[in-house]
């Protein structure tokens, strides 16, 4: 394929994708069919749509599987494109609802208002419909990295080409020098989306500056932060954007070979990526003489076996090389001596996904949003105690309050917001006092957290911050590779100190010891995993020190999470003597006669909480 042929294909593909166009379908139905959608039941919905269309003889309607649309709690999601009308988003779909959408909306032009997103969120007027883009969840988002996710069929090269896919590569190969590509990237201000935030253009320039010879491009798709799934969504929903970006990187840095290191736990991402690479190769967009030029570049996939540390760039390369995934000391940096000892450029999925649009539309298209030092948008996986869980892409500089209260819809069940955690096990909790912080790399670091790869977990008053610190540390203790002493032994010893605190056995000296050890691990560990492992503990000790002290001095867990520090009691005034709790107690710790207040023997109680869950009168409390 040449650049001209690519343009021809784009125009025809675009037409085919447009409902109502000469070569397009009468209507286009898409089903969110990423891992999350499938898990929520998208398969019977898809089958029902197809069956109903067939039964009604609606042959000119296309039904396609697309990637993640972003709203986890509203899955399965179906969207309907009809000519001359706004796209309609149906949520919480079932096979039955799907059949009704076909018979009503597709066959008779009547939107089923009660199934739409506006009805589900309560934002649309009774019986009315609002577009997805006007919901609170979407209004403040700006989709750049995720622009094709949920829009195109990720398994179709043609769909990607219809959305200007491979135009950036064609532009670079036919009208730019490698240095120009790097300059545009530098001007755009794009920084690494994997967590470190290193300027991408500068990173590419280091590899480009190395003498000609074998060089590699590596895509880090070993997304491992608990609760983070941005990269999976991109690979599942728009794999060609990564393939195109890696080819661009190869062109800019003088490399002819790349590796995508992706978790084996992402089977659909792997499948889609495999197909994307094969299709691109077959179309002459990968391999020898791409688009008829002198540039050749090809890609391989390597599956990660599930070690978190392999997300660290040197460990990842060691793993690709076939060795135990362990980090190696830097310098030498990968740009000088990386994969197989050769100069290597490594970026994560989201970083790459941003690149084609920057090259195609220019730096300004990207850096027109963002803060002074953090340009563009960032994808976050929103989770925890929040109404709207899901995948959101927001301009840098959006405040945490906007993300949590507006996009996220606030804290459910009338609970009070306590903290937001960013950066996964490398980050830290951000307290309510700092909720107006505009999100960017530097601001998050300054308040003791970090951008990380994009996990954002919201906590409410029921979360104990000592326990949260313990939770994240438990993860790094488990995922430490075991190579360097501070991380291998230090995190374990920190963990033991935290357990001592949550069990009420710690002294104030233990708090000092914990802090000293945390700083030691930060300063002395070999790789980023160890250097950031203490962050969740340090951030929580900084922002919620009173909770730590309460555990140590008063032996109290105010959130009522740390079992060793709480007891269940029956409030006699509220107890009706119904005996329900007594019957459900597994250890016979509750005594009392019928219609008389009961009593819990705290010595026997195992704090399972069964009594409290059973009591209809709210007579049982824990404190």
């Amino acid at each position, binding site marked *: 394929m040449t650049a001209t042929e690519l343009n021809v294909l784009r125009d025809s593909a675009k037409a085919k994708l447009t409902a109502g166009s000469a070569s397009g379908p009468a209507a286009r139905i898409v089903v969110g069919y990423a891992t999350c959608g499938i898990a929520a039941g998208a398969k019977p919905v898809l089958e029902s749509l197809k069956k109903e269309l067939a039964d009604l003889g609606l042959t000119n309607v296309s039904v396609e599987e697309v990637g993640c649309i972003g709203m986890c709690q509203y899955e399965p999601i179906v969207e309907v494109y009809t000519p001359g009308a706004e796209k309609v988003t149906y949520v919480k779909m079932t096979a039955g609802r799907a059949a009704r959408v076909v018979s009503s909306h597709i066959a008779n032009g009547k939107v089923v208002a009660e199934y739409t997103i506006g009805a589900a969120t309560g934002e649309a007027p009774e019986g009315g419909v609002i577009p997805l883009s006007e919901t609170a969840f979407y209004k403040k988002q700006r989709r750049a990295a995720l622009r094709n996710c949920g829009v195109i069929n990720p398994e179709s090269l043609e769909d990607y080409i219809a959305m200007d896919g491979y135009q950036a590569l064609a532009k670079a190969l036919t009208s730019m020098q490698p240095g120009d590509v790097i300059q545009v990237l530098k001007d755009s201000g794009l920084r690494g989306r994997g967590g470190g935030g290193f300027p991408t253009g500068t990173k590419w320039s*280091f590899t480009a*500056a*190395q003498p000609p010879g074998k060089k590699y491009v590596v895509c880090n798709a070993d997304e491992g932060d608990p609760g983070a799934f941005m990269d999976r969504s991109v690979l599942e929903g728009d794999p060609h954007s990564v393939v195109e970006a890696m080819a661009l990187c190869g062109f800019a840095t003088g490399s002819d070979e790349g590796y995508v290191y992706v978790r084996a736990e992402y089977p659909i991402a792997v499948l889609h990526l495999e197909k994307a690479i094969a299709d691109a190769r077959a179309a002459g967009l990968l391999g020898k003489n791409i688009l008829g030029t002198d540039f050749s570049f090809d890609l391989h996939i390597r599956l990660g076996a599930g*070690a978190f*540390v392999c997300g660290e760039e040197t460990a990842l390369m060691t793993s690709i090389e076939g060795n*135990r995934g*362990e980090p*190696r*000391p830097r*310098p*030498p940096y990968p740009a*000088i001596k990386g994969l197989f000892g050769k100069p290597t450029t490594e970026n994560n999925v989201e970083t790459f996904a941003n690149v084609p649009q920057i090259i195609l539309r220019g730096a300004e298209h990207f850096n027109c949003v963002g803060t002074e030092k953090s340009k563009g948008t960032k994808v976050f996986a929103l989770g925890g105690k929040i109404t709207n869980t899901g995948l959101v892409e927001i301009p840098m500089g959006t405040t945490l309050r906007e993300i949590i209260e507006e996009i996220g819809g606030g804290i459910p069940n009338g609970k009070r917001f306590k903290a937001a955690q960013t950066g996964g096990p490398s980050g830290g909790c951000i307290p309510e006092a700092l909720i107006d912080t505009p999100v960017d790399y530097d601001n998050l670091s300054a308040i003791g957290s970090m951008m990380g790869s994009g996990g954002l977990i919201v906590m409410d008053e029921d979360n104990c911050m000592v326990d949260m610190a313990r939770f994240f540390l438990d993860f790094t*203790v*488990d*995922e*430490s*590779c*075991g*190579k*360097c*002493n*501070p991380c*291998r*032994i*230090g*995190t*374990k*010893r920190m963990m*033991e100190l935290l357990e001592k605190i949550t069990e009420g056995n710690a002294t104030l000296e233990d708090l000092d010891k914990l802090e*000293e*050890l945390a700083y*030691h691990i*930060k*300063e*002395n*560990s*070999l790789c980023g995993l160890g*250097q950031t492992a203490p962050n969740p503990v340090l951030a929580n000790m900084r922002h919620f020190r009173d909770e730590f002290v309460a555990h140590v001095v008063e032996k109290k867990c105010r959130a009522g999470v740390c079992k060793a520090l709480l007891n269940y009691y029956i409030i006699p005034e509220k107890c009706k003597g119904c005996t329900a709790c007594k019957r459900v107690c597994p250890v016979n710790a509750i005594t009392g006669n019928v219609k008389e207040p009961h009593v819990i023997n705290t010595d026997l109680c195992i704090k399972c909480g069964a009594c409290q869950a059973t009591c209809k009168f709210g007579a049982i409390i824990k404190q």
Partner: protein
Amino acid sequence: MAISEAVKTVNLKINGMDVTVPAGSTILEAARSIGLEIPTLCYLKEINEIGACRICVVEVKGARSLVTACVFPVAEGMEVFTNTEKVRRSRKLTLELILSTHDKNCLSCVRSGTCELQQLCKEFGVDDPDYYKGENIRYEFDDSMAHMVRDNNKCILCRRCVAACDNQCISVIGANARGFDTHISSPFDRDLDSVSCISCGQCIVNCPTGAIVEKDETAKVIAAINDPSKFVVVHTAPSIRVTLGEAFGMKIGTNVQGKMVAALRRLGFNKVFDTDFGADLTIMEEANELVERVKNGGVLPMITSCSPGWVKYCEHYYPDLLPHLSSCKSPQQMQGAVLKSWYAQKMGIDPKDMFVVGIMPCTAKKFENKRDHQHAVDGLPDVDVSLTTRELARMIESAGIFFRDLPDEDYDNPLGEATGAAVIFGATGGVMEAALRTAVETITGEQLPNVDFTQVRGTEGVKEAEYEVGGLQVKVAVASGTKNAKILMDKVRAGEGGYTFIEIMGCPGGCVNGGGQPIQHAVVRNFHDLRTLRAQTLYEADRSLPLRKSHESPAIKMIYSEFLGQPGSHKAHELLHTEYTPRPKYN
């Protein structure tokens, strides 16, 4: 970023002092150039540069965190601080963490006194070994091998053993599991005897603690000495005389032959002999075998078989090439076989009552004397016990012998008499040189004008030389360390090289650097070439001896005339030759 080719040096400041070092140096090397020793634990120059232990951390102005001096390259204008409060506190804390997982049973640990962890704890004033006391994992010992015991409870995961094993191209040990559960063991946690460990012991000499030690057999020897019915004979390998002194604080490369003999007498051995006799005998048999192979179209190149680590390597990795191995037993085994036959007869001793002890630089010797076909006389083992240099040093120490003050004494005869050719067996290339001295004279029938075959000397991994012998072009090769052996063996397997005779030693540098030799701390190993320092004393000893060719040894002449007849005779074959067995990599 890139340093231009023209710039060959870098200027930096260490603790405020100006330092100029070659570009590409590490902070550790730069500090050393001005006499500053930065402590290390995991670092082994060129072998284990992994920056894992974090003991060598230093402060670099402007750096985000502390950096590891062992691997961090210097840069122009860099300012380094090696001894600040922060650095010292960090090192101490790391040591406290290590100690929290370490079996601190130091009182009777064989490495007490030579333990690098112990020394660092002393230097950094670690006064509370339980400061970070916490949960620990108890590991079972792996004593499945004849030569060593691994005690992971004392392992500090510096990975030096792993690097040493990788450097031998064996790689049968590595890190298993992860995080706090990480431990060093064989693949799938199998016992070492079920994988292709060659018993070379390089892991032992590189271990900073007591996590890997030789299997101590001194008790058996002491019991034999104390048994009045036993006639206990000891013989010492060529290299022991230049290494034993190190165990008593003497300078590396000191020749302590006389004191060693004196010490052995004081330990109560009935006779003290020199394995050099066995080495001369080996040359007689091996040179003869080579000449026979050349004359009769036998399998060539012929390869030496003195090193049991190498022999085991060949059995595991190149079983198809076993016909290339000389059928000669090693000097230790030849010595044992003639002790229990010729010498026993001469002395009127029942070989059953004779107990032969070899003092060896080698841990594989412990395996060798348990091999099949090493029981020449009445099914008795040729050698009953092989002790390493280290075990001998411990026996001397525990017997209260003031080693450094001992007089020089001579070996007993006739098996204490040897030539310079035998002494150099202890260095890589030595067997080749000794064999050439005899083979050339045997073939040409003429006296060599110069017995020094210097081309085969030195610590280079693979050496080649070509000689004209009696009108024949003879190409020889020498390799030490199985990594280098692999290079030659791949050539031999491919039918390349055109070699007639190859010498291979299992350990890098040969026996002077054997797995049974006194342990020097990594700090010493990193900045001094033990192989050269020890070997040069052997070559000095060779030069100082009146006889430097095995076939000129009166003792050798005597044993052939009295007992063996000719080299390669039926009797010689019965006593002095052996067989090899292909071995799988996993069993």
